[in-house]
């Protein structure tokens, strides 16, 4: 059965940011539709930080998935215990989880290893792609990064033909700059608060989910020369009804 391309873009959250709240991570595992999904963590944006990899394995224990990670800085030592060909490994996954950090360094390193093409192929084949922060921005055509000082525009992989902004509630300077960029000609797009995630099926927004009540997604665009910021209510994954439905 052909699986549709899917991306779950976190504004922030998951094991990297919400210690003790696994709901967004549980959600992406469930999206794969596989009982024990193969999950590969890609920590490139952090420079493959050891402590980050350790935290991934703690959160994605082998009991509920088949976890692995890909290191692009240590390929001479097996690159995280994978075979010689990361493409083959990535294409065999159910979920590719991209960690946070520097999106500029992330994209530059991916290009140096040809990974941008592999990830696009994985997406087309129905491997679920997800991530937070830099791991969200990277999937979009354009994005705002504030990782290198003042917020600035960057081009992402362009799998989703929109712009993206993360940590929308947590970083007012970034939010203002994103509005400013969109008003000034950057393509319209989607933003997400911390703990909220935008779930795309194909290139359409399917739903917004959140790991607690409150956080939302935002559709941001320009209409008749005016900036329009439309709040998108999130499905609260912490609500009892949702927990029951999942069980």
């Amino acid at each position, binding site marked *: 059965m052909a699986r549709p391309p899917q991306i779950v873009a976190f504004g922030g959250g998951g094991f990297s940011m919400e210690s003790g709240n696994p709901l967004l991570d549980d959600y992406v595992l469930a999206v794969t539709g596989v009982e024990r999904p193969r999950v590969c963590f890609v920590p490139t944006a952090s*420079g493959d930080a050891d402590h980050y990899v350790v935290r991934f394995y703690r959160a994605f224990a082998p009991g509920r998935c088949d976890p692995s990670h890909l290191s692009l*800085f240590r*390929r*001479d030592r*097996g690159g995280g215990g994978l075979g*010689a060909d990361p493409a083959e490994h990535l294409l065999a996954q159910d979920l590719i989880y991209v960690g946070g950090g*520097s999106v500029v360094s992330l994209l530059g390193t991916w290009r*140096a290893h040809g990974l941008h093409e592999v990830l696009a192929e994985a997406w087309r084949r129905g491997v679920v792609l997800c991530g937070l922060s830099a791991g969200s921005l990277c999937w979009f055509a354009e994005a705002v990064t504030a990782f*290198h*000082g003042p917020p600035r525009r960057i081009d992402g992989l362009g799998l989703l033909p929109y712009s993206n902004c993360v940590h929308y509630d947590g970083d007012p300077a970034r939010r203002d700059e994103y509005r400013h960029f969109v008003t000034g000609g950057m393509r319209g797009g989607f933003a997400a608060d911390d703990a909220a995630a935008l779930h795309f099926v194909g290139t359409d927004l399917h739903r917004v989910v959140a790991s607690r009540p409150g956080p939302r997604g935002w559709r941001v665009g320009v209409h008749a020369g005016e900036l329009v910021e439309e709040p998108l209510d999130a499905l609260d994954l912490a609500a009892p009804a949702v927990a029951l439905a999942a069980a």
Partner: protein
Amino acid sequence: MPRTIVAMGGGGFTMEPDTPALDDFVLTLAERREPRILFLPTASGDPREQIARFHATFDDRPCEPSVLSVFRLTDLRRPLREIVLSQDIVYVGGGSMRNLLALWRLHQLDAMLVEAWARGIVLAGLSAGAMCWFEGGVTTSFGPPEPTTGLGLLPGSLSVHADGEPARRPVFLRAVADGTLPAGYLVNDGVGLVFRDTALRQAVSSRPQARALRVERVDGGVVETPVLPQYLPCAAREHRPTPFDILEFRRAHLGASRRE
């Protein structure tokens, strides 16, 4: 100002933290008595552990150490170029040469380092951080060793860890023999080659038996000529730690500029 590059086949604080001979030697190459030394751990993804080792080695030596992480540029208070060009020494760590060069290009650090070199700032490094200055080298960035291209500040090629990672050696010799790589040097762990402008001026070593080879292509094969490094005496081990009050003074006085 002479242009200076120190290319280490391996060694220094990241590989032999108990043998500071090469690192102390690098400090002597700067003209300033307490040189400003900037560490670039880019090729390893700026790991905390390497940064901690750099500080453990250089914080109590007569120098002003600082670290530049391209994964954490958000902490910068000055433009990147200004930081690089205000140094006396730039020390580049090992790791993935492929990632190193890609990340430098992304942040225009490659051009800044060429400018630094032209201004007489000493460029030092080991492994990927040594090969990057040459026209080419042998990298394991993709797993198995293979020839790759560097920045080309120095003519010729360099292959590192000749003793520690012997799988590189045949790949290097074959690449020089068939012309994939220009003539160059095959260097053991613990050996540093010092280039003034583009000529080899001196070879030094932290290990008594460490060797380097000059490898040239002749009639489709290679000719190997040994380069005997000067063994650096272990006087470095008798290094006296900087007194605590001086350290405290430096922290208070230089704190702001060091936190870059």
